[in-house]
C-alpha cells in the first residue's frame, strides 16, 4: 500500500514537472528553418512601432512591477522607448547618444565610442526586430512550444554578462516576429516585456526620435 502511495506521489511530481516544462529543444533542421523565417521577416523591417507592457519580477515582491508604453524603431538604428504609465519617461537611442525625457525634464548622454553601449543598443534593437542570431556574441539555444519558438541568448561579452545573464526572445509561430523579450539577471530577478499591436513598416515621423 505504502509503495502505491509513493508511486502515486512520484507520478504526480513528474506530471507536474512535465506540465511546467512545455519547451522542447528544436532539431537542427528546425533551427535552420526557424532562423531563415525570422531573418526573412526582420530583413523586411524598415520601421516598427508597438505597444509594450513591462513586468519587473523580483521574488520577494508580492506582485510584478508593471509599466507600459510605446516603442518605435526606424532603420538604421533609431529607437524610442516611451513609458506612458504610470509615469512619462522616454529614452531615445540616436546617433551615439541617449536622449532622456523624464516628465518633461530633458537630458542627453553621449555614449560615443563605448563598445558596451553599442552592443547594448544593438541588443535592444535586435531583440525587438528578432535580428540577434550572432554566434560570436551569444551562446544561443533554440526551443519550441505549442504556439511559439523560444530562443535563449547568453552573452559572451564579460561586461555585458555582468548586467544581463540571459535574454529570451519569444517568437510567434504565426508571423515569426518577437512577442516577448525576457531579460534575466538571475532566476529570481527578471524583466519581461510583452510586445503587442505591432505595426511593421508604417510611417514613423523623424520627430518621434527628437527629445
Amino acid at each position, binding site marked *: 500500500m505504502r509503495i502505491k502511495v509513493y508511486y502515486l506521489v512520484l507520478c504526480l511530481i513528474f506530471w507536474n514537472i512535465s506540465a511546467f516544462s512545455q519547451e522542447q529543444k528544436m532539431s537542427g533542421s528546425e533551427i535552420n528553418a526557424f532562423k531563415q523565417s525570422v531573418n526573412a521577416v526582420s530583413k523586411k523591417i524598415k520601421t516598427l512601432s508597438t505597444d509594450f507592457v*513591462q513586468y*519587473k519580477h*523580483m521574488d*520577494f*515582491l*508580492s*506582485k510584478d*512591477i*508593471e*509599466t507600459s508604453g510605446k516603442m518605435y524603431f526606424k532603420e538604421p538604428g533609431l529607437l524610442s*522607448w516611451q*513609458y506612458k504609465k*504610470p*509615469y512619462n*519617461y522616454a*529614452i531615445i*537611442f540616436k546617433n551615439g547618444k*541617449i536622449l*532622456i525625457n*523624464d516628465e518633461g*525634464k530633458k*537630458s542627453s*548622454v553621449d*555614449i560615443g565610442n*563605448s563598445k558596451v*553601449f553599442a552592443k*547594448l543598443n544593438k541588443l535592444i534593437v535586435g531583440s525587438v526586430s528578432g535580428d540577434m542570431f550572432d554566434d560570436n556574441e551569444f551562446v544561443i539555444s533554440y526551443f519550441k512550444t505549442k504556439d511559439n519558438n523560444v530562443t535563449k541568448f547568453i552573452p559572451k561579452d564579460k561586461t555585458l554578462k*555582468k*548586467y*544581463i545573464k540571459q535574454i529570451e526572445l519569444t517568437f510567434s509561430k504565426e508571423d515569426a516576429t518577437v512577442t516577448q523579450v525576457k*531579460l534575466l*539577471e538571475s532566476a529570481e*530577478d*527578471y*524583466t519581461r516585456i510583452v510586445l503587442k499591436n505591432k505595426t511593421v513598416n508604417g510611417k514613423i515621423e523623424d520627430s518621434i526620435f527628437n527629445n
Partner: protein
Amino acid sequence: MVRSKILFLIISFLLVTSLNSCGTNPIKQLNEVAVVNENRIAPYFLSKDIDYVYRANITVYGNDLSGIVVIKKINETMHRVVFTTEFGNKLLDFEISETTFKVNAIVDELNRKILVNTLKNDFRILLRKSYKIDKQFEEDKYQIGESKIGNRYDYLYFSKNGGELMRIIHASKRKEKLSISYTVESNIFANKIVIQHQNIKLRIELNYFNNQ
C-alpha cells in the same frame, strides 16, 4: 545605458567635498512642553503585505538621476530595498535593519563607500519604526518629538490636525543634517517622500506609483 551618467554623477559626488553646513538645529526657538507620548511610531513602511514601489528622482550636485525604488518589509526588523533603472536593471539591492546592513548586489559604478554609507544612513532613518521621545516641543501646526540616538537627534513633526507624521529632521546638537518630508495619503501611507540633505547637495524624491 545611463551608466556613464551615473558614473559621472558619482565622481561629482566624490569630488565636491565642500561640506557647507547650512542647517541649524530646528527647535532652537521653540517652546518645550510635557512629553505626551513617550513612544512614537513612524508608520509608513510597517506592512509586510505592501510592495512599496516608488519612482525615484535623485539630484546630486545639480545632476539628475531617475529610477525605481522598491521597499519591502521582509520580517519584523528588516527591510529589503532595491534600486533599478526604468528598464528594470538592478543597480543596488540591500537589506537593512536598525543594527544590520547587507548589500546583496551593487553595480560597479555605484560601489563607492561614501555613497553606500549615505544611502544606508538615509534609509535607516526612513525605515526606523519606533522612536523614544525624550522631549516635546510645539509650534503652530506641529507637535514635535525629540529623540536622541547616540550623538544625533531626530525631530518628529506630527500634524496637530490629523496626527500624521509629516517630517523627520535629523540633526546634530547644533545643525540640521537632513530632513525627510512626507506627503501623506493616510496616517499609514506616504505617497511622496523627499529626503533633503543639508551638508551635501543631495535630494532624493520618491513618488509612489500605483502598481496596477
